[in-house]
C-alpha cells in the first residue's frame, strides 16, 4: 500500500545439467522476473549468452503451424471462453497425432479457397472487360483478322461523324460511351485524329469468339459457381473451427510455454559447464521458490541474495487493496511508479470517483453508466478493459450519490431540494429552489484544488527523500516546501486583503499581511535555491488552483445541456401538442421524444468523456506534477497462468 511490492534480487547458478529442471520449476512458479544477461566487454571472458534448449526449433515450428491454423480459422485465443481445461499430457499427445492432419486439411482448404478467389477475380475482370462490347451487336471474332482494314474500339466523349467510307457503331448505354469504327487502312490516321479530337480512349478487344453477351454470361456463371464453392470451403473451415477451437487454443498455450522455456537460456549467462541468471522475486515468495529450486535439483544449485544497488533496475509490481487495484490501469496509462517512490494508486482510487461525481452528479446518467459498465463486462475479455470498467462503475456510483445530493435526474429535479449546492439553472420556465449557487460551488472546488495541491506538495517532500540522495534530496525537499509556502503565502495575502465567503476573513488582522508576505518570500527563496529558473513557473500556482474550477464548470455545462434538451423536447415540442392532439402534433411529439433520447444519449457520452478526462487530467497535470516521477520497469515474471491446460 502506497508503495510498490518489495522485491528481492536473486542470483542463481547451477550446472548445465540442471538447466531443464530449473527452467521448468521457475516457469511453474511464475514469480521470477529474469534480468536479461547482456555481455559486456568487462564481464568475465568465459561468460556468454546461452543456447536454446534442444528441440526449440521443432517446438517453434509447431507453434507456427498452430498459429497459422488459428489465423486461417479466425480464432483469437484471447477471446475464447474457457470451457474445460485439457490435461497437458493429452494435448502434447494430440499435437503429435492430430495436429498434422488438421494442419493438412486447413492448408488444403486455404489453398483451395485462394485458388477459387483468384479464379473468381479473373472471371469478374473478364466479364467487366466485355461489358462495353456487349453494347455493340458484333461477334467478338468480327473484330480481328483483317489485313486491309483497321478496327478502332474504345470509349469516346460523344458520337462523331467520319467522312470516309467506314462502318461505325456507337452506344451511350455504357459508362463513357462505346464506339467501334472500321475503316480501310489508308484512312487510318485521318480517322484516328477525328476520334482523338472527340476524346477517344482505345480499349483492347477481349479474346474469344461468339457474341460478347453470351461470353459475359459464361463468365458471370463461373463467378457465381466460384463463390458458391468459396462459401462451401468457408463452411468447412467454420466446421473445423467449431470442432477444434478448444484443442487449438490449448496447443497454442502449451507450445508458447514450451517455446518460452526453450528460449530462456538466451537470457542467461553460461560457461561450458554452468549457467548463471539474475532476477527478481517478490519478497514474500522468495523463500518458497528458493526451497522449491533446491528440492527439485537435490541441492545441485547455488542461490545468493544480492543487494539492491540501483533502485531504477528493480521491476515494479503494484501492491494495493482489492478496491484500489482497478485504478492501476489509470496509473499505467501515465507511468508505472518507480520502485523507490510513493505509489499514489490508493489516493487516485478514492479521489477520481469523487471528482467524477462532482462533475457528472446526476442519478440518471450515473445509472446509465453503471448499467453500461456492468453490461460490457461480458463482452470485454482483456484484463485492462475489465479494470477500466470497474473504475467506471465506481465512478458512476459516485455520480449517483452526487446526483442525489445535487437532486438531479437527467437535468430534472428530484422531489427534494439540493442537499449541497444546487446546480439547477433557470432554463425553460421551471425554476427550482434558489437557482444555481455558482459562486459557492466555485469556492468549494477551489478549496478542493488547494487541498489536493497541498497534498501533492507534501507527497513531493516525502518523495524527495526517497528519490534523491544527499544534498540534492534536501534541496528538492526545500523546493517543494517553497512551492507550498508560496501558495499559502498568496492565499493568506488574498484573505487579508479581500473578504470572501467560505474562506477565512483575515481583513481585520494587519499582522496577517506581514505573515503572508514572509511566507511568500520564504517560499520563493526556497524555490530559487534549487533552481532560479523555476521561478518562471510561479504563475502556475494560480493557474493550477483555478484549474480545479473545471469540476464546477464542466459539470454545469453538462447540466445546461441536459436542461436545454428537456426544454426543447418537452417544453417546446411535446407539451404544447398534448393540449389538443392533431396529426401534425403527433409527428411533433414523436420528434420530441426522438430529440429527448438522442440528446440524452449524446450528453451521457459527453458526460463520460468530460467527467473522466477532466478528472484524470486534474490528477495527471495538477496533482502528479507535484511529486510523481514514474517510469518504473513492469514486473513481468517468467511463466504463465495457464488458461486452457492443466498439468
Amino acid at each position, binding site marked *: 500500500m502506497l508503495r510498490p511490492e518489495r522485491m528481492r534480487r536473486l542470483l542463481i547458478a547451477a550446472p548445465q545439467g540442471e538447466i531443464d529442471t530449473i527452467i521448468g520449476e521457475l516457469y511453474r512458479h511464475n514469480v521470477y522476473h529474469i534480468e536479461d544477461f547482456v555481455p559486456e566487454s568487462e564481464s568475465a571472458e568465459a561468460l556468454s549468452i546461452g543456447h536454446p534448449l534442444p528441440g526449440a526449433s521443432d517446438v517453434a515450428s509447431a507453434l507456427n503451424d498452430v498459429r497459422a491454423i488459428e489465423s486461417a480459422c479466425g480464432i483469437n485465443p484471447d477471446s475464447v471462453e474457457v470451457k474445460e481445461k485439457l490435461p497437458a499430457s493429452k494435448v502434447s499427445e494430440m499435437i503429435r497425432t492430430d495436429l498434422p492432419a488438421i494442419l493438412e486439411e486447413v492448408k488444403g482448404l486455404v489453398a483451395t479457397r485462394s485458388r477459387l478467389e483468384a479464379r473468381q477475380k479473373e472471371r469478374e475482370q473478364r466479364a467487366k472487360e466485355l461489358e462495353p462490347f456487349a453494347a455493340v451487336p458484333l461477334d467478338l471474332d468480327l473484330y480481328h483478322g483483317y489485313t486491309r482494314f483497321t478496327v478502332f474500339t474504345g470509349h469516346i466523349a460523344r458520337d462523331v461523324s467520319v467522312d470516309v467510307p467506314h462502318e461505325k457503331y456507337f452506344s451511350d448505354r455504357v459508362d463513357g460511351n462505346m464506339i467501334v469504327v472500321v475503316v480501310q487502312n489508308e484512312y487510318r490516321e485521318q480517322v484516328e485524329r477525328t476520334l482523338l479530337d472527340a476524346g477517344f480512349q482505345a480499349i483492347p478487344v477481349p479474346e474469344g469468339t461468339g457474341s460478347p453477351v453470351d461470353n459475359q454470361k459464361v463468365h458471370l456463371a463461373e463467378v457465381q459457381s466460384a463463390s458458391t464453392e468459396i462459401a462451401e470451403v468457408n463452411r468447412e473451415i467454420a466446421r473445423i473451427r467449431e470442432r477444434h477451437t478448444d484443442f487449438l487454443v490449448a496447443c497454442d498455450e502449451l507450445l508458447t510455454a514450451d517455446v518460452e522455456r526453450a528460449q530462456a537460456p538466451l537470457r542467461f549467462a553460461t560457461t561450458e559447464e554452468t549457467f548463471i541468471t539474475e532476477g527478481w522475486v517478490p519478497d514474500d515468495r522468495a523463500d518458497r521458490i528458493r526451497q522449491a529450486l533446491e528440492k527439485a535439483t537435490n541441492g545441485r544449485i547455488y542461490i545468493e541474495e544480492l543487494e539492491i544497488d540501483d533502485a531504477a533496475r528493480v521491476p515494479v509490481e503494484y501492491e494495493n487493496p482489492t478496491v484500489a487495484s482497478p485504478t492501476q490501469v489509470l496509473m499505467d*496509462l*501515465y507511468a508505472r511508479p518507480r520502485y523507490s517512490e510513493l505509489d499514489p494508486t490508493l489516493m487516485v482510487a478514492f479521489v477520481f470517483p469523487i471528482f467524477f461525481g462532482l462533475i457528472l452528479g446526476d442519478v440518471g446518467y450515473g445509472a446509465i453508466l453503471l448499467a453500461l459498465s456492468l453490461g460490457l463486462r461480458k463482452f470485454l475479455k482483456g484484463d485492462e478493459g475489465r479494470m477500466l470498467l470497474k473504475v467506471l462503475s465506481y465512478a458512476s456510483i459516485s455520480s449517483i450519490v452526487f446526483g442525489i445530493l445535487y437532486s438531479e435526474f437527467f437535468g430534472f429535479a428530484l422531489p427534494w431540494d439540493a442537499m449541497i449546492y444546487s446546480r439547477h439553472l433557470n432554463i425553460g420556465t421551471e425554476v427550482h429552489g434558489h*437557482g*444555481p449557487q*455558482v*459562486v459557492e460551488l*466555485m469556492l468549494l472546488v477551489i478549496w478542493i484544488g488547494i487541498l489536493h495541491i497541498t497534498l501533492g506538495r507534501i507527497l513531493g517532500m516525502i518523495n524527495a527523500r526517497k528519490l534523491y540522495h544527499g544534498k540534492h534530496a534536501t534541496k528538492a525537499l526545500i523546493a517543494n516546501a517553497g512551492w507550498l509556502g508560496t501558495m499559502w503565502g498568496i492565499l493568506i495575502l488574498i484573505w487579508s486583503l479581500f473578504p470572501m465567503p467560505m474562506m477565512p476573513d483575515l481583513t481585520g488582522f494587519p499582522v496577517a499581511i506581514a505573515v503572508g508576505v514572509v511566507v511568500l518570500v520564504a517560499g520563493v527563496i526556497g524555490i530559487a535555491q534549487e533552481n532560479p529558473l523555476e521561478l518562471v513557473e510561479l504563475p502556475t500556482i494560480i*493557474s493550477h488552483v*483555478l*484549474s480545479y*474550477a*473545471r469540476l*464546477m*464548470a*464542466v459539470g*454545469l*455545462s453538462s447540466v445546461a445541456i441536459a436542461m436545454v434538451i428537456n426544454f426543447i423536447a418537452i417544453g417546446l415540442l411535446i407539451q404544447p401538442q398534448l393540449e389538443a392532439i392533431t396529426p401534425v402534433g403527433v409527428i411533433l411529439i414523436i420528434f420530441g421524444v426522438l430529440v429527448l433520447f438522442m440528446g440524452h444519449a449524446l450528453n451521457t457520452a459527453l458526460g463520460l468523456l468530460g467527467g473522466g*478526462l*477532466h478528472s*484524470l*487530467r486534474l490528477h*495527471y*497535470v495538477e496533482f502528479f506534477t507535484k511529486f510523481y516521477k514514474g517510469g518504473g520497469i513492469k514486473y513481468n515474471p517468467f511463466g504463465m497462468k495457464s488458461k486452457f491446460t492443466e498439468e
Partner: protein
Amino acid sequence: MVDFGTAELTLEMIQASQLGMKAIGAGLAVGLTGIASGIAEMAIGSAAVGATAENRDVFGLVLLLTVIPETIVIFGLVVALLLLF
C-alpha cells in the same frame, strides 16, 4: 427603433440593457476562448493521431495532452458564469 435622443430611458430599460451586455460578455468569453482552445488543440490533436499511429501505447498520454488546452475555455466558462450569476 428607439430613439435614445428623445425617448425617455426608464430604469427598467437600463437594467435590461445591462443584462443584455452581461449576456454578450458571457457569450464572448465562452466563444472566443472556445476558438482559442480549438486552435491550440488542432496542432496537438494532429500530432497525437500521428504518434498513436506509430505506437498505440501512447494513446492514453496523447489523449491527455490533447485536452490540456481545454483549460482556456474552462476559464472562459468560469468567467461567463461569474458574469451571469
